[in-house]
């Protein structure tokens, strides 16, 4: 009985037998019915206008006009068909393919969007603006959830994403102002995020303090320190400490003129491009390289990894640090891209949404990226709802990411399983 570390995680239940769970087909079926009834039969009868290109764009694309009720019925039937396919696969004893829930989610969200817009006082939105805004809001979430993925994959629970984002945001503003260069601010933000992460790593790996406690406490600590310094330095001397300027938007010629995807992919600041690179690199690194194999081994079964000569705690330390640096860059987005000043608690709980995104994305960089986009979309929709005026209160839109996450961890929407050794410190011997 090698002490407290070896205990296998009893977890929720034993491994399921080779019969796929019917939770996925069942929940897809219910959601499809809900969509058909509420968005379709009970749907609004106005026509929703979705503008794709703005007036000044080089390529003009006509707006999508979707009648509320008919559109709802069509989407509902489409969703039902996907649910039926999933149920068919289940009866054949097969799992639903991975793309199915994603495709289902996309259609469902679009149906929801049509329903909201068609029911609004002013049934018209700019689809391009909506999507671009969603991506902008999602950038810090993506960085934050990537940090979470890196930490959890190596067996350290990172509740401190919020603190890393906030630390990054503060440092970026401070350093960018003092040096006069937002790029140096961006680097400093990464360093600050890494520093927060190192505290998490030292306390949880060296002192074996519970990782969740360290994470929770670190969030408070960073909030306290940044709030204190904001009050004593930045408020009295705004010019000197809190005017960081912005990272330049670097549009790629021609490509950035493509409707919808142009502004998303090719008209970003350096932080935006870094986001796409980071997602790709983390995915490639984790799943296609020797380093990633080691990282995952440490996160799933540290004893085995140790037996093979991997230094478990060093791997954990550096991975957690790297994760912090990534989250720090995400924090810099708040103060160098979105707006150009730091305010108290500017991250406003985004770290926890990033945590939610990482769980919803099933501890996978691509999944976390898509989940972050979805949550960014929910964020953006929430503010648009306020503008166009719909019967749906914006607060319920705001709740959506959190509710979806609860459903996800409860296993109602597929099964999300964390790395086996996540949260468990490793003591050799």
């Amino acid at each position: 009985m090698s002490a407290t570390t070896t205990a296998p995680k009893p977890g929720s239940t034993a491994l399921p037998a080779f019969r796929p769970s019917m939770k996925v087909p069942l929940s897809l079926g219910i959601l499809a019915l809900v969509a058909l009834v509420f968005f379709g039969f009970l749907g609004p009868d106005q026509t929703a206008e979705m503008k794709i290109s703005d007036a000044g764009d080089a390529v003009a694309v006509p707006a999508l006009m979707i009648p509320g009720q008919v559109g709802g019925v069509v989407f509902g039937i489409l969703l039902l068909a996907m649910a039926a396919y999933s149920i068919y696969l289940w009866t054949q004893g097969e799992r639903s393919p991975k793309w199915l829930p994603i495709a289902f989610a996309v259609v469902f969200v679009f149906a929801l969007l049509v329903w909201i817009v068609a029911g609004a006082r002013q049934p018209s939105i700019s689809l391009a603006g909506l999507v671009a805004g969603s991506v902008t809001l999602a950038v810090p979430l993506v960085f934050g959830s990537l940090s979470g993925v890196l930490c959890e994959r190596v067996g350290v629970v990172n509740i401190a994403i919020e603190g890393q984002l906030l630390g990054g945001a503060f440092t970026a503003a401070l350093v960018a102002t003092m040096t006069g260069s937002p790029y140096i601010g961006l680097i400093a933000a990464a360093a600050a995020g890494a520093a927060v992460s190192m505290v998490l790593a030292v306390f949880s790996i060296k002192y074996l303090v519970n990782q969740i406690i360290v994470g929770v406490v670190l969030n408070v600590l960073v909030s306290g320190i940044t709030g204190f310094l904001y009050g004593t330095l930045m408020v009295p001397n705004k010019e000197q400490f809190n005017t960081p300027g912005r990272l330049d938007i670097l549009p790629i010629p021609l490509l950035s003129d493509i409707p919808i995807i142009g502004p998303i992919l090719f008209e970003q600041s350096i932080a935006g491009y870094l986001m796409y690179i980071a997602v790709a690199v983390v995915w490639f690194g984790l799943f296609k390289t020797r380093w990633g194999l080691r990282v995952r081994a440490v996160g799933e079964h540290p004893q085995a990894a140790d037996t093979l000569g991997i230094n478990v705690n060093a791997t954990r330390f550096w991975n957690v640090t790297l994760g912090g640096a990534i989250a720090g860059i995400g924090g810099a987005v708040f103060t160098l891209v979105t707006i150009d000043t730091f305010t108290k608690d500017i991250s406003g709980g985004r770290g926890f949404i990033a945590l939610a995104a990482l769980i919803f994305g099933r501890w996978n960089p691509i999944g976390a990226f898509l989940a972050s986009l979805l949550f960014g979309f929910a964020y953006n929709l929430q503010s648009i709802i306020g503008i166009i005026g719909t019967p749906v209160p914006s607060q319920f839109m705001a709740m959506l990411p959190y509710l979806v996450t609860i459903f996800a961890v409860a296993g109602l929407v597929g099964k999300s399983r964390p790395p086996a050794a996540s949260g468990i410190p490793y003591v050799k011997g």
Partner: protein
Amino acid sequence: MTENSQSKNEQTPAQPAEDQPAEDLSAEDQSTADLRAADVSLDTAGGMLEPSIVPVSSQSGGSGPQSSSLVRRIVMGNGFVSVLAVIVALFLGGLLIASTDAQVAKTAGYLFARPTDFLSALWAAMTESYVALFQGSIFNPRQGLQPLLETMTVATPLICAGLGVALAFRAGLFNIGAQGQIIISATLAAYVGFAWHLPFGLHLLVVIIMGVLGGAFWGAIVGILKARTGAHEVIVTIMLNYVALFLLDFLLNTAAFRRPGDSSPISPRLDESATFPVLIPGSRLHVGFLVAIALTYGVWWLLNRSTIGFEFRAVGANPVAARTAGVKVSRATILVMAMAGALAAFGGIAQVAGTEKVLTGGVAAQIGFDAITVALLGRSTPWGTFFAGLLFGAFRAGAVQMQIQTGTPIDIVLVVQSLIVLFIAAPPLIKSIFRLEPKKKNKTPKAAPKAALVNASGGAK
């Protein structure tokens, strides 16, 4: 390994039968501090059982082994470390205050020419804020002990919510959701407080019942999800906090919760009959504080004297063994989360029916998050939580005065609080700072946690 599992098999069936004597034994211990008694009976069921063999860490569900062993270490760590942790945290907080002080910066410029100037400026900057903190929270010449009453008022919800977090900790569950539980209970309690008009006495009772039901419901959701689906309680509680926050925001924007003819998100004032009577005229201290004391005693009784409490602790110490011994683990999980929610609910009730008397979006302030640090500082024992709540209440109450007098931002309190908890959670760190342990060169921090772990697993090896 085999020996261990054998002896486990031998002793566990006997456990339910020994349940009763175990309680009697710990009753004999009444003279010793409850903390100690709790530990002894937790470890060995009052001496009837051998120390647990299966590591504490193998608890069910996602929260992972470390949580309960940490909880046990928190419970078992010595009080001296807590005091030292508070001192170190205050000192570091003082350094942070001094680092932004103009006088300190000026004297640092000629540090080597006249170091005494620098040191005295440093000392002045550090003490000035803390003196103001003390004057705002305990005693000052102008108001006498009036600030202490304010401290007790602020501490009331902290204690209640802290008890909720501590109770869940003892059952091996991380209740990060006190914030949401406070919000839901405050919302329900406030609604019946201003919308219903009932006779004196009955009204307050209804307010309390509705609040407690709300908090217990919000907590029970977590317990049910954890017990039925294995959903990690930390994630669920964090998410439910936000759901509760937006729900409150939504409700405050409906006509039912607003004042007639006023569009700002603030509820009408609660009826006089729905509020806690003021204890000492001239202060805000209300009967809720007495309720908090009663709850502290109640939780102590529950944990150390009742069968349910024994089951909770058994589940927290080792859910596998508890299940073998006949404890219904999932029932205990749901029950403990509902009770934790109910305790946190008293924090929400104290806010709306005692301190604030209206419902606003910020009714829960940071109480739910402070409650976590309160429970950790109190090492998850009821009376420890009570005094930790008083301490953090003092910080909160004094910080307002400190900001007015010295301009030191309130956030310094967050820094000090979180440092305290960090140091308490890592006793080897604080011990190595003060060289409390026999020093082996460079090995102290590494050796200590191992020892602690072996202790925590009941000397498994």
